[in-house]
């Protein structure tokens, strides 16, 4: 969130004075970059190692035979290509869960921001309260509830809870208050546009940066969802990547263990690539949306 803001001030500053260089800030930033990239570098380097050289070599440099491609091949084919199945599951949960969460949060947030209705304050308090409750704390009650309804060990056990995003709702709400001028809505009404039409033709465009932000948060949350699928799902064919990789990792434990650490590492690498891509793509969109707003003012 700070990145676009900085961007904006530097643009404004350019016209007034030459940007000052701060060596200290550069160093701090460089350290932050290293801190953030080091685990990624480790993951990338480790994914080129075979299981044997993985154990005995320094983590941050290459060693042993270059096994990157054989690791990828093994990851994708191990146990009848179950990894691809998990990948598809994660995509499904993200599209249905995060997509649905974004849609619901947008509709509800916009409605609460732009219409007067009784009990709005109570809704506001409830939403704020819901933000304070971590999803993990609700996992076990949700499990018992879902098992009464016979929904455990189905895709709905993951998708339905993912649809609820109080934080997203709050974000859209707060964003819509400023981003969609009430005067504009009134003008549309005067011109005879229905509320739905106004929403889909005017408001949704103004809300785009907010919607993208909510989508980004929801996608990341569902992509990384761990505890809920852990207790909801029994069938490996329904697992998302997070649970599948954990199961591979645990294969190293106990009687009959069969460690495949190299596949766990390569699988982790493959798991984060899409989320990195999504983040980069959406971030660009998000940034342009914010700056478009600033030009209008």
């Amino acid at each position, binding site marked *: 969130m700070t990145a676009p803001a900085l961007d904006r001030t530097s643009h404004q500053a350019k016209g007034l004075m030459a940007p000052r260089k701060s060596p200290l800030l550069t160093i701090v930033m460089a350290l932050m970059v290293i801190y953030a990239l080091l685990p990624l570098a480790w993951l990338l380097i480790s994914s080129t190692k075979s299981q*044997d050289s*993985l*154990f*005995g070599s320094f983590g941050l440099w290459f060693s042993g035979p270059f096994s990157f491609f054989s690791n990828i091949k093994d990851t994708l084919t191990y146990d009848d290509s179950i990894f691809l199945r998990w990948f598809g599951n994660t995509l499904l949960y993200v599209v249905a869960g995060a997509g649905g969460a974004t849609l619901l949060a947008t509709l509800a947030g916009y409605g609460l921001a732009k219409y007067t209705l009784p009990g709005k304050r109570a809704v506001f308090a409830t939403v704020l309260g819901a933000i304070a409750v971590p999803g993990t704390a609700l996992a*076990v009650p949700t*499990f*018992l509830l879902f*098992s*009464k309804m*016979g929904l*455990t*060990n189905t895709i709905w056990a993951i998708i339905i809870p993912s649809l609820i995003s109080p934080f997203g709702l709050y974000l859209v709400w707060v964003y819509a208050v400023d981003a969609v001028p009430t005067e504009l809505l009134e003008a549309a009404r005067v011109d005879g546009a229905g509320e739905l039409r106004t929403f889909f033709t005017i408001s949704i465009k103004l809300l785009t940066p907010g919607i993208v932000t909510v989508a980004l948060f929801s996608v990341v949350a569902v992509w990384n969802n761990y505890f809920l699928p*852990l*207790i909801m799902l*029994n*069938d*490996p064919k329904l697992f998302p990547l997070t649970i599948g990789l*954990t*199961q591979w990792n*645990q*294969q*190293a*434990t*106990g*009687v*009959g*263990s*069969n*460690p495949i*650490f190299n596949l766990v590492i390569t699988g982790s690498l493959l798991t984060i690539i899409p989320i990195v891509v999504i983040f980069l793509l959406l971030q660009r969109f998000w940034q342009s949306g914010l700056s478009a707003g600033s030009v209008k003012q």
Partner: protein
Amino acid sequence: MKAHMKRATVASAAVLAIGLALSACSSGNDSGSKSTDDSTQAAASIDAALQKGGTITYWTWTPSAKDQVAAFEKAYPNVKVNLVNTGSANDNNLKLQNAISAGSGAPDVVQIEYQSLPQFILSKGVEDLTKYGFGDLKDLYTASTWGSVAQQDGIWALPQDSGPMALFFNKKTFDKFGLTVPKTWDQYIADAKKLHAADPSYYITNDSGTDAGFGTSMIWQAGGRPFKADGSNVTVNLQDDGTKKWADTWNQLVQGGLMSQISGWTDEWYSALADGKIASLPIGAWMPGVLESGAKGGSGDWRVAPMPTYDGGTAVTSENGGSSEAVTAQSKNKELAAGFLKWLNSSEDSISVFLKSGGFPSTVKDLNADSFLDYKSDYFGGQQINKVLVDAANSVGTGWQYLPWQSYANSIYADYVGKAYSGKSDINAALQQWQDANVKYGNEQGFTVNK
């Protein structure tokens, strides 16, 4: 962090299950009343179910399960087995507990570790198999594994494998530092001191007091019988002579800083096993397969010897790990499930697949087969390891029992014993605290503990 999380979930699941267990107890005995059939009739009904066919679900984390199921489906083409790999004992137990508390979602056949079986018996999660004539199978299995599944007036599972403890040691390290293969625990401690003094990066073994399964197996080997369960009357006595004997011995290793603190089953651990920095492991007989798949670099270096004893006298050992398979009470097709189970853990077709994957059997016939005993392991430098391991299987101390809430007990073991290890304080005191916590917990759950 991760371990804590896992322990927390297992513990909470155990809470759910045991609450249910006692309510089930009080609601009276409503199952297992059909045990009047004589065993030939029972066997015939199982065969009929197998021929008729159907679909059953099987939860397991045994690596050979897939091949076993394939062989089964070939032999009984009308039966479809829906195989679910639960990954590990912990996840498997958690999911089974949840399914039992929820009243639905359990598979038909499920793998359960011997140490966890009592709690599923008590919560009526598993079916008494006596009515299917499984009593006739008794002589197929070693006494200790049969004793683990036949208890509380029923037969609750069939043994899959066993884990009699033996001492696995790295001969290369032993030779390099001039260590003798210990016959007694005193010699083991002497080796530990000599090794670590010669090169501080080497340790005789690794143990950080977090693996309750190891601790209880060591107590068992020392002659301790700290747990007694008879229905809901439970005794916990972690101050008996055998338990003290082990704790006093292990105190010397802990307080001397003679054991590596590397956690088991991590890449670091496998690495230290491969290069011999961890010089020995007192562990179950299933370890050869683990070494071969996880510590390839140590090939040729390892050997196996009988467990050291306390007095240098008669060999005695204990079971460490090992699993059985059970039919769940929730199963909708129990006869078919029992038929699959019987095939899985007593037929030659299934056990041969299991053996090929490096498993250590619980069946007397396979343990004493010439081909098994004469097998020379390349990983163990050509040693006939099964001769040592089968001797171990024949000298397991009798009369051991686990607690009805062993999963929970194990999950809090590290809070007491692990703390004693890291503080280098007395293990006996830590065991006393562990006992107090178990007495408190058991009484809270409605058991009568130490009264």
